[in-house]
C-alpha cells in the first residue's frame, strides 16, 4: 500500500513539474516593441495599427504587412502570416503575437480588440438605421 502512495506521489509531482515547465515555456509575455527586439522568444506586443502608413497583402507569400506602434509609441514593422485579420479596421487595439527578427516583427497571429463590438454606446438614435461606414 505504501509503495502505491509513493508511486502516486511521484507521478503527481512529475505531472506538476511537467505542467509548470510547459506553462512557462508557452506563456507569451506582453512586452513593449523595444523589449520584443531584444528577445528570441515568442512574445505579444500590444499597440495600435498605424493606418496612414503602408499596409498591403502579398498574395505570393500570403502575408499581410503593416506598421504598428506600441503603447510607448515605438514603431514596429509587422509581417503577419495570413490575410488582414478580422475587425482590423475598427480595432481600438491590436495584439501581435510572434517573434522579432532582422528589423521586422513576424507575427503568427494578430488579435484585435473591439470593446464596442457587441454593445452600443449610445443606444438607438433618432434615425435608427445602421449607418456604420465601411472603410
Amino acid at each position: 500500500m505504501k509503495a502505491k502512495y509513493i508511486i502516486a506521489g511521484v507521478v503527481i509531482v512529475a505531472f506538476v513539474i511537467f505542467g509548470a515547465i510547459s506553462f512557462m515555456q508557452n506563456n507569451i509575455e506582453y512586452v513593449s516593441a523595444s523589449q520584443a527586439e531584444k528577445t528570441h522568444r515568442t512574445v505579444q506586443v500590444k499597440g495600435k495599427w498605424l493606418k496612414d502608413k503602408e499596409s498591403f497583402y502579398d498574395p505570393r507569400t500570403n502575408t499581410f504587412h503593416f506598421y504598428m506602434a506600441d503603447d510607448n509609441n515605438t514603431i514596429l514593422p509587422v509581417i503577419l502570416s495570413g490575410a488582414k485579420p478580422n475587425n482590423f479596421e475598427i480595432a481600438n487595439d491590436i495584439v501581435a503575437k510572434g517573434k522579432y527578427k532582422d528589423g521586422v516583427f513576424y507575427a503568427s497571429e494578430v488579435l484585435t480588440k473591439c470593446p464596442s463590438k457587441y454593445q452600443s454606446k449610445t443606444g438607438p438614435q433618432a434615425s435608427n438605421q445602421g449607418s456604420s461606414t465601411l472603410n
Partner: protein
Amino acid sequence: MIGKALIFAAFGGMLTAAFSYTYSFFSGDERVKKIARVGYHIAAVSTILTAGYFMNLLLTHQFQYTYVWSFSSLELPSPLLVSTFYAGQEGSFMLWTLYTVIIGLILMNYSQRHHYESSVMGIYSAIASFLILLAVVKNPFLHVWQTWPDTVKPGTIPDDGRGLNPLLQNFWMVIHPPILFLGFASTAVPFAHSISGLLRRDYKNWINVAIPWTLFSAAVLGFGITLGGFWAYETLGWGGFWGWDPVENSSFIPWLLAVASVHTLLVQRRTGGFQRANFLMGMAPFLLVLYSTFLTRSGVLGDTSVHSFVDPGMWVYVLLVILILFFASVGLGLYFFRHREIPKKQISYAVTSREFALFLGAASLTVVAAFTLVGTSAPLITNLLEGKASAIDTSYYVKTNLPVAIVIAIMMGFGQLFWWKKSNSQTLMRTTLPPLLAAAFITITVIFAGMHDPAMILFFLSSAFAFFVNLQIAYKIAKGNPNYMGASLAHIGVALLFIGIIASTRYEQHVTVPLTKDKPAFVFGYRLTYVGTTQIDQEKRAYNVTIESGKSKFVAPLVMYESSYNDGAVMRNPYIFSLVNYDIFSHPSLLAFIGRNMLTRDLYLSPQTIETSGGNGFQSTKYGITFQVDKDVPIQVGQYKLVFKGFKVAEDQRQAMMEGKPFELGSTIQLTNKEGQVQIIVPTNRIAPNAQPDFTSAYTKSGDQFTVLDIRVDDKTGSATIVAAYKPSEKSPDYALLKQTLRPTNQEETLVVEATIKPFINLVWGGVIVMVIGFIIAWRRRRMDLIRTTMT
C-alpha cells in the same frame, strides 16, 4: 414592470424553498417541507412565466427594451428570432436558470422517491436562488432610455433593432447554446447529491442516485461541445473544430470531470472504493461550471482572448465570485468536516484490475482538466505572479495533454479487458492479443503511409487498440443484451475521435492560392477558378470558385463581407466539400462527386482576401502605384522598364551603419523609358531601430516620383526585394494609369483562397456521435438499475 415583478416572485419563492427545505432537513419537520414545495412551485411558475414573457417581447419586437433592441430585428426569421433569447448575457443566464428550475421539478419528484428530498432540494434551491439573483441584479427588462439615459429620450420606441450578430445567424445558434446550457444546468444535480450524502452521512447510496444524472450531464455536455466545434468548423471559418479558446475550454473542463466522475462512481458502486474521492468528484463538474462561467463572463480574461468579453458590471462580477466561494466552501467545508468519519474501505486490487484501469483513466481525465484549467486561467495566474496578465500559447495544451491522452487511450482498452480485482494472466494474454495485433497491423500501415512522429504513432496505436478491444466487446454484448453496451460504444466513439483528431489536425495539408479571375489554378488535383461574385443580400457577397475534377464541375460560393453590425469587420465563411454538405439537395450530382472524393477527407476552402487592383497586381497608395521587385529581375512599370540593381550606402553614412546607428540606405533603380533613355535614381530609406520608417522619394528628370516603402532581405538566400511606389507626374503618359488605379476597377481581381485537406475529419464527428449514443445507453441502463433496486 411585469418582468421585474415575476423575477422577484421567482426569487422570493426559491429563497423560501431553499430555507424551508434546509430547515425541514435539520428539524425533520414535514410541514415545512410542504411550504418549501409551494415555494419551489411558485418560483418555477414565475421563472417559466418570466422566460415566456421575455420570449414574447422578442417575438413581438418590443424594441423599447434594451435587450430586444440590442439583439433582434424585424428581418430575422423565426428560428433565429427565438435564438436571440440567449444571444446576450442576461438571456443566456435566464436560459440557464430556466433549465435549472425545470430540472428541479423533475428532481423534486426523483429525490422524493429516493428519500433525499429535503437535503437535495435544499442545496439545489439555493443554487437556483443564486441564478435568479443574477437576473435581479442584471435586469433583462431594462428600457432603452434606462440603459442610455443621456442619449435616448424616455418613451422612445425604435423602429427596428440592431439585429443579431451575423456570426451567430445560422442553424447552430439555434441548437448549440440550448444544449450546452442544459448540460451546464444538469451538473447541479450530482453536486446537490454529493452535498446531501455528506449532510446525511450517507456515504454509499447517494452515488446510485447520482450516477444517471452524471451520465446525463456527460452526454449532453459532450454533444453540446461538439456542436460548437462543428459550428466553428463549418461556418465560422476558424479552420478547425477546436481552438483551445477560453470559451471552448470552459465547457470542456466540466465535461472532463463529469466523465471522470462517471468512472469513479462506478468503481464505488461495484467495489465500495473511492468513497471519499467521489464526494469531490461529484461536486467538481458543477464547481467548474461556476468557475468557467466566472472566467468567461466576468471580463477577467478581457484582454487576452479572441473573444471580446463584455464587462457585465460590478454586481454580476461580485455575485459570480460569491456564488463560487459560497458553493465551494459549503462543499469543501462539509467534506473536510466529515472526511475522517467516511469509512475507508480497503479495496485491494492489482495493477491488472479493472479498478486500477478505471482509476488511472479517471485520474488522467482529471489531469487533462487540470492542465486545461491552468492554461485557461493563465491570465489570472500571471497577473498574480508577475503583476501583468498574459495568455498562453495554444501549443501548451497539445503538449501537456498529448501524453495523458495516450494513457487514456491505453486504459480505454485495458479497462475493458481487465477483470475486477485481478485478471487471470493467461486469459488476459488471450484477449489482449487479437486487438493488439489488429492495432499493430493498422499502425504499421499508417507508418508506411507517412506517419513518422513517434508520439503520434504511439497515440494512434493506443487509440486503435482501444477501438478494437471495445469493438470486440460491443459485438459480444450486442448479441446478448444491447442495453449493456453503453460503455463499449462510448469508448469506440472516443477511440475514433482520437484517430480523427490525429489525422485531421496533424496530417492536414494546406496551401494559399491567389486565384486571378478566370485563370485556373491546380490545387490538390482539383482545378479551381475564381469566376466572379454574387450578391447574396445587402451585405453578403459570394465569391464563386468553380472546382473541376474530371467531368464534374461545381461552384463553391465563398462568402466574405464587411459586416456593418460589427462596424465593418470582415466576415469570412468557408465552403467545405464534405459528407455533410447541404448543397447535395440542390445539386444531386454533387453527391457522386463527394462520394468519390470526400469519403476520407474534407476539402476546406476559406476565402482570405480579395485584391481589386488596376492591373498587374498594382495597388495604389498615396505614394502612387505600388509594385514589388526582386533584385536584378526587370519588370515593366508603366512606361519604364525597371531594374532594381541593389542597395547603396553613401560614404558619409557608412560609419553610422557600421556602428549600428541610424543610416540612410539607398536603393539603386535603373529606368529605361520607351525611347530607350536610361537613367538611375536612388530613393532612400532611413534605417533606424525603434523609429518610424522614413522614406525619401527620388525623381526622374521628367518629375516622376519613386519611393521605396519596404525592404526585405533574406539572409539565407541573400535575395533582396523592395516594395516601391511609382507616382507619375501630371505630364507623364502614365498619369492616366495612376488615376485609373486610384479608382479601383474590377478588371483584375485576385481572390486569395486558403485550401485545406482535412483527412478523416469525419471520424471526429462520427466518433462523437457514437460516444454520445454510448452515454445515452449507459444512462438508460443505470436508470433501469436504479428503478429495479428501489422496487425490490
